[in-house]
């Protein structure tokens, strides 16, 4: 039941925000919605975390949500990251702030649905629905060239999700599963013959690859990041919505082990290439948000490498990296908003020497930036390490390439910090405001916690990764009796 409330509460608050007349209540209401969702997420344990009622019996779909697994962890992190985002957006967005906040809350509701759904059709519904808040944030508050960015985003996303829809539609009838619930599908889908699995997996993988994103389906990400509202708050929502890795981890790989095995080489190659490509392209840009977008693209490449290693450690690490980069990339986008607040531009050339007049801002940014490039003891390191470890077991060549990306990202991060904060200051700037302190606090707390005590999340991720690993490791399944019959007829 609590799982359903984690979706319904932010949705209700979003509606209330859109209709609320008095500006004074907007920010408290939004904060209350996020905090309430987070509290629900922390309360959701054991049986209270699950809900399971028939939805459309004719199609075999269920309203099945579960906050106890890997999805629950990601949903809680999403709520946690959205807290500073709502605080920041409420202060920084001047035009129709209540609607902006409403869309942020709608994103949270949709993410809750994506992460908690244990029914494939329900998962797809939330997957598709969550596209709308992202488009609305871009449409209503984006910069001059937002229309092109929107169209690009829409077409990429829709092409991806429709390919995935085809697989969603095909998997149950072809597998002969009773319904669309995860356990029902898990009982039937892995028994499908490898070729069918490969086709169905390809549909899922295409949809998830657009959202991850990995090369060559990443073009939308850069444009969207550049054109989103200058506060960076919409980019945080976008960062949280990069759920392709989760889709592979929670649905495609466990349900279609043979399909995953067949397509893993391609996934590994594309993932490794994306990691290097993103990191290298990032160094060629001077637009801060484009750099961040390419850097996060590079992370997604490593996530893909870890997942497609199909190795327990690799998959666990990928999820941990995904969770960590929600915090660190999200935090960096908020920092980009703070910097824009000071210089009214994202051009790196306009910055430099900020550390002299704003030492606290520099220090806080340094922590998040170092976490993002995978410095040990901070958020991204455990995930990145495990993902690459898994990759070395399964595909050393791809892992070596991905490690190059980590090195390039390190150079990028240090260089970025130098250009922003060190050197000769062009002009003085103010240090962190109380609001900015409040925004940094939860980000820094999570960054340190993930780095120093990664075990809490890792155990949950590992438990779920093991489900799929068992299926993959099991000997080739005996031919499905139904198929044999069908063939003989």
């Amino acid at each position, binding site marked *: 039941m609590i799982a359903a409330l984690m979706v319904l509460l932010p949705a209700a608050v979003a509606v209330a925000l859109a209709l609320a007349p008095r500006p004074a209540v907007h920010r408290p209401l939004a904060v209350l919605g996020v905090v309430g969702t987070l509290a629900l997420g922390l309360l959701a344990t054991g049986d209270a975390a699950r809900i399971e009622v028939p939805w459309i019996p004719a199609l075999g779909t269920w309203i099945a949500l579960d906050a106890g697994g890997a999805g629950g962890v990601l949903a809680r992190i999403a709520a946690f990251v959205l807290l500073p985002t709502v605080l920041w957006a409420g202060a920084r967005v001047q035009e129709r702030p209540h609607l902006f906040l409403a869309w942020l809350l709608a994103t949270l509701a949709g993410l809750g649905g994506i992460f908690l759904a244990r029914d494939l059709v329900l998962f797809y519904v939330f997957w598709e629905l969550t596209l*709308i808040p992202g488009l609305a944030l871009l449409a209503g508050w984006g910069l001059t060239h937002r229309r092109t960015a929107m169209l690009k985003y829409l077409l990429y996303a829709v092409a991806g999700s429709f390919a995935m829809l085809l697989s969603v539609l095909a998997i149950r009838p072809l597998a002969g599963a009773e319904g669309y619930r995860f356990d029902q599908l898990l009982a039937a889908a892995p028994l499908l013959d490898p070729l069918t699995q490969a086709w169905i997996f390809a549909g899922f993988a295409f949809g998830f690859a657009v959202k991850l994103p990995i090369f060559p389906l990443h073009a939308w990400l850069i444009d969207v990041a550049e054109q989103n509202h200058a506060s960076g708050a919409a980019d945080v929502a976008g960062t949280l919505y990069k759920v392709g890795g989760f889709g592979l981890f929670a649905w495609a790989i466990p349900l279609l082990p043979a399909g995953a095995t067949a397509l893993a080489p391609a996934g590994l190659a594309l993932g490794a290439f994306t990691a290097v490509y993103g990191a290298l392209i990032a160094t060629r840009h001077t637009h801060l948000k484009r750099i961040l977008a390419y850097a996060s693209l590079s992370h997604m490449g490593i996530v893909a490498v870890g997942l497609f290693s199909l190795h327990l450690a690799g998959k666990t690490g990928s999820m941990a990296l995904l969770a960590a980069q929600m915090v660190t990339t999200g935090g960096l986008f908020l920092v980009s908003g703070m910097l824009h607040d000071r210089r009214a531009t994202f051009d790196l050339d306009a910055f430099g020497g900020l550390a002299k007049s704003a030492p606290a801002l520099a220090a806080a940014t340094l922590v998040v930036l170092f976490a993002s490039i995978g410095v040990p003891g901070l958020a991204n390191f455990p995930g990145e390490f495990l993902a690459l470890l898994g990759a070395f077991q399964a595909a050393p060549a791809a892992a070596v390439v991905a490690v190059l990306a980590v090195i390039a990202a390190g150079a990028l991060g240090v260089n970025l910090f130098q250009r922003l904060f060190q050197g000769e200051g062009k002009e003085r700037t103010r240090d962190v405001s109380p609001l900015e302190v409040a925004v940094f606090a939860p980000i820094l707390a999570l960054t340190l916690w993930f780095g120093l005590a990664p075990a809490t999340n890792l155990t949950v991720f590992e438990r779920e990764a093991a489900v799929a690993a068992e299926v993959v490791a099991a000997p080739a399944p005996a031919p499905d009796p139904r198929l044999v019959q069908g063939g003989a007829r």
Partner: protein
Amino acid sequence: MTLPPVIGDLMPLAPAAVLVVVAATALLAGVFARDRAPLVALALLGVAAALVLAFDQWSRAIAAGTAGAALGGAYLGDAIGHAFTFVILLGTGLAILLADAHRERLGMDHPELHPLLLLSAAGALVLVSAGDLVTLLLGLEIMSLAVYVLAAWRERSRSGEEAGMKYFLLGAFASAVFVYGMALVYGATGRFDFAGVAAAAADPSFAAHGVLLLGGVFVLVGLTFKAAFAPFHQWLPDVYSGSPTPITAFMSVVVKAAAFGALVRVAGTLFGALGPGALGEVLPGMFGVLVGATLVVGNFGALLQSGVKRMLAYSAIAHAGYVGLAVLAGGADGAAAAAFYLLAYTLTTLVAFAVLLSIMDDDDRGDRLERLEGLGRRRPWLAAALAVSMLSLAGFPPFAGFIGKLMVFQAAIAAGHTALAVVGIATAVVAVAVYARVVVAMFLRDPAGHALPQRRVGRGTLAVLAVGVVGTIALGLFPGGWLDLVARTPWWALGS
């Protein structure tokens, strides 16, 4: 109360009969009445009475566990008949409300308007309930004749005349093709009723496979003409854009639903009649090609239009393709998917037409896409309703259109038509671009210079918008009730 057997046997005909009686009464009363308001009320009352009777029949069929039949099986009250009857009556009621809201300014303030709509709806009911080809033809002609007149309603308008003339000539041509096919089917099997045709073809001594196939081709071509499958779709955009907008709305929901109700039955009879061999593959194969072409032509055609009415016309073609996928899938699943899709399409499309009617010029012109620019600022509620409609047509959850697509594709894949399902999904991406253009124009562009008519949204339009939007969302979130109702209704004898 038990009815005498003869009348009891005729009860499935009651909804259509009520519509005819009310139409005749309204026509007579219209000669004398000065005020039109009571006539509208009468027409709506007639539709409501027909709905009540239809529901009564429906629940009786479920309770009895057998499909209703009248006139020796010429008129059926099975799952197809009941489900499509509901869709048609709902569409008719809402279309009457729409026509009434704009009748004065569109020069439609004549006493024969509602009788024609009711007669056409009665024909549609006959069409979807027909148990044999002759009844089917009767229904087709009753429905079409009234619509030919309605399509040509615009006085002193070239495009109106063109619409009526084109619709009439091509419609008559399609009917002729259909009748020819019917004759061939009869020649091959000696039967007009669907069950009889299927039984005769299944008989081991049956030898006239070639004639039956030829007849089947003609019958299908005739019906796909009516349902506007590519390449028989060319008449539709001209007719849709030339007709008065409320009539366009009526045609795109009622006439379309009726044509598909008939197609479901005919396809169900003929696709299996020729056995599993190469000969039996011809009709489904041909139909599959038509479905694929329709999906491509409809969706890409819609992308090229600059007028919203024409865009909706091509979108009607595209959606015919999706329903066609369900028809091709066949069986109870396919029929249920087709009925659901059309119910969703009816609710959604009427919302689009209701919004369009509220912002078009007094002379029923001005449907260019530019007119919608900035509607989100100028008329936020109308824009929101149209956005719901467009998102549902594009297949976005949680709206009814999404569940419709889900069911259609599911049925198609389960029946082994994976390649066509892929075509459907690929063209659905194009469709998203089509409907996104409308949403982008409404919310992302600044209000254009031109003035919108300052027209209040009347009670009738409001009712259509409310029913349409609430229905689209409710069906999207909780489709189970309707699907369960259809699933529990006895299937017709042939389906076994």
